């Protein structure tokens, strides 16, 4: 563990965003994770994405469960709201918070143990309800915090650090998210910020359930020969289907790539995603073919990364439930206590 605070001094030419903040203003406390943990790189990617999108830190709520991954919200966005829930319960707490105050930007951070083992049900329901959030699983194939037991995303046949072979079938969270109706699904790798940062930005701009499965090697317990979640293994088997740039509405959009190799997707909030396609036939608007493709490539031993599925016009939980447009904490007395005639009307309807 690092004992000194990260010095406040920064590069003299560090940029400020339109809110007058530098990237450093989006950092949190210094990490207590193991040196080299993939999760720290994801934190750094979140910091960059929020800085680049000019997000006001006080309008973001970061929620997590339990695990090394779930500890990370302490290490980024120090000026944002945070809630460290119990193991596997982040999705419910996030859903509740979102229902109460739809104006905040919700960032759920979880681990493969937190989401695929104890929290699998919670994960599933938040996806199928279409909660407007970014849900990141920092996937290292083990329970890092409890010293490296296989998690439910660990591949069958993968070897633990002690040489034990995993005999259970792996849960594929990307496949589940696709089946359960998530409207933005991506996979990435902590060691590739060029891919990861724009994906997080796009997910933050997405107005529905956005899920990112981010492979994130555990250097302490799952970065050895025989692991399928090590830096080396992921780098060797990474098959990116596309690269993404997020273009804010005020920027000019130019496409200077060969025809067919670039696709522009305009999201509901006006932002545009520019995808450089590495795989020209891959259609990221078709759930079924996306699923099929993923399963094929997985069977061939590849780890497919990139933006795998996006619905540019999603509907979210509030849309389904016809909830109040105003966050509950901003509803004034006249809305909350509408008076006896309204009550009489409601009662009459129930008779």
């Amino acid at each position: 563990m690092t004992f000194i605070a990260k010095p406040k001094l920064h590069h003299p030419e560090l940029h400020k965003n339109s809110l007058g903040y530098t990237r450093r203003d989006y950092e949190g406390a210094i990490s207590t994770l193991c040196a080299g943990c993939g999760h720290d790189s994801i934190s750094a990617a979140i910091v960059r994405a929020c800085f680049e999108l000019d997000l006001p830190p006080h309008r973001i709520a970061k929620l997590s469960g339990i695990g090394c991954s779930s500890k990370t919200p302490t290490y980024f966005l120090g000026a944002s709201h945070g809630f460290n829930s119990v193991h596997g319960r982040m999705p419910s707490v996030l859903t509740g918070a979102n229902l109460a105050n739809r104006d905040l930007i919700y960032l759920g951070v979880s681990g493969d143990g937190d989401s695929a083992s104890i929290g699998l049900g919670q994960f599933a329901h938040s996806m199928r309800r279409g909660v407007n959030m970014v849900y990141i699983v920092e996937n290292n194939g083990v329970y890092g915090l409890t010293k490296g037991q296989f998690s439910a995303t660990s591949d069958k046949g993968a070897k633990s650090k002690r040489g034990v072979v995993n005999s259970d079938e792996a849960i594929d969270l990307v496949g589940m998210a696709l089946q359960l109706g998530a409207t933005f699904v991506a996979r990435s790798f902590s060691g590739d910020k060029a891919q990861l940062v724009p994906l997080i930005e796009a997910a933050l701009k997405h107005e529905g359930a956005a899920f990112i499965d981010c492979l994130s090697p555990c250097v302490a317990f799952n970065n050895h020969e025989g692991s399928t979640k090590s830096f080396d293994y992921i780098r060797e088997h990474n098959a990116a289907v596309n690269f993404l740039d997020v273009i804010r509405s005020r920027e000019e959009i130019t496409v200077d790539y060969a025809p067919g190799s670039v696709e522009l997707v305009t999201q509901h909030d006006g932002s545009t995603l520019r995808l450089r396609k590495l795989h020209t036939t891959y259609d990221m608007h078709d759930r079924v073919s996306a699923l099929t493709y993923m399963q094929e490539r997985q069977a061939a031993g590849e780890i497919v990364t990139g933006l795998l599925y996006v619905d540019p016009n999603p509907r979210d939980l509030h849309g389904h439930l016809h909830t109040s447009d105003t966050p509950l904490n901003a509803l004034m007395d006249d809305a909350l206590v509408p008076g006896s005639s309204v009550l009489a009307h409601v009662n009459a309807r129930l008779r």
Partner: protein
Amino acid sequence: MQPTDIQDPDYFHKVVDCQWACPAHTPVPEYIRLISAGRYADAFMVNWKSNVFPGILGRTCDRPCEPACRRGRVEEEPVAICRLKRVAADYKGDVSDRMPPAPTTRNGKKIALVGAGPAALTVARDLAPMGYHLVVYDGDSRAGGMIRSQIPKFRLPEEVIDEEVGFITAMGPEMRLGQRVDSLKGLLDEGYDAVFVGSGAPRGRDLDLPGRQEASENIHIGIDWLSSVSFGHITKIGRRVIVLGGGNTAMDCCRSSRRLGGDDVKVIVRSGFEEMKASPWEKEDAIGEDIPILNFLVPKEFKHRDGKLYGMTFEKVHAEYDAKGRRRLVPTGEPEHFFECDDVLVAVGQENAFPWIERDIGLEFNEWAMPVVNETTFQSTNPRVFFGGDAAFGPKNIIWAVAHGHQAAISIHQFCQGTDVNDRPPPMVTLASQKMGIHEWSYDNGVSLDLRFKVPHRDKVIALKDIKSEVELGFDLKLAFAEAQRCLNCDVQTIFTDKLCIECDACVDICPVDCITFTGNGDEADLRTRLMAPAHDLDQALYVSGELKTGRIMAKDEDVCLHCGLCAERCPTGAWDMERFLIDVAQAENACCSK
């Protein structure tokens, strides 16, 4: 780019900006750490070995290290390197037993040194322990050169000079004080194996204007006047004083005048305030003593009546720049400015003078009447004669005189031993890991956020009453510690071992100043555009690794690295390490090896 050759001693030396900028290459961060540790005598000895006059320089150095200091690039102001040197001197206690003793045996070689200023005294210190018979001549009755004769006592107390000059005279050189050398030829004929000329730049420039002769009673050449003040021959000046000139001498003249009866003292310069040669802190101190500095005024005439000076006239000018950016001072056309005064001090420049060196002894002079001196060996065209300090290339300052002295001592030693003076001895370099535990270092890697601390001054009213009363009181130990903590330990180097790196990005993510980038290789100009943060300062190196597993390289911009060690703390494989780089720039063999 090719992987950086970190075996080259200059590579990491340049990263220690202050040490690289110091003409004598004082290991600055090393002594600052010793001060933090309360080891003042050790801090003093580190200085003494490199710069010979820590107490003197800690009060007077021109401090080329400070504008170079990295702290000034990541924060507002550099570390107070110079005044921390004084701390080492102030609190060292008795270090006489750590000084090299006078040698008991002679090596049979006899060297004459002309002048007892910092240059010659450095040569003496370096050569004395080796058994040379050294004979030091100075026209003045006390050793120290201009340190003694020019620098006012309110900046540099006599005892400090006595002590530090005393360390050298105790090493046994034969001091022939009060003895001017009138003929170099004569000296050479006495059979010295070598002669070192450290006679300085002793002549002050005059201003030949109307009235100069008639009013000469009240017009004084700055450096002559200052030495008369230093040696107690002058104790008073008129009430109204004009000082002409904008360099160090002018600043010392005006501040001395304030202490000798001048209560209306002004400095008048031809140039603009910004272009004055004096250091910013000297100007600040003068202004703080109620001395206005008037600029863009060209002196025209000394006004006198009945042989008595009563004022001076000036022409107002402004600066104009031609296409090449050269400055010209052009009269504004305003009527002449007149200022009343009782005395004028002329401090408009200083020159060399070698009337005592014959021109037929194989010692060439150039077109500016300066001796031809080799810039590395300090040897003249007469192989037996070496130069250093202000006598070598014109007036500079103490720390340059010391640096010259060290190099000349190496040459004299090699010359006397019959080896080639052009074969310069290499520096001694050590790199040692500072790792003590998983996240523990043997240096204090926390970065202080304090801004530069000011040295306390004596109350002005008291200070102005006595020309010998030192103005600066020096840091007390609490302030010294806090200021020392501002040093970034730039000598604790980040060392990268490419074959250990797993490219996890931890160092990139943690680095507070965005020094580190993993990217595809390219030539330097191209790489500099693709880094995490702009790297425009071409004087600051890029540290580039060999190829990594993914085919990329690691490129680190050394420019604003805080040496905080966080990259090494967050590295899971030890690919980064923090290693202390100590470079001992060569001195004449054996010089002051005492530790």
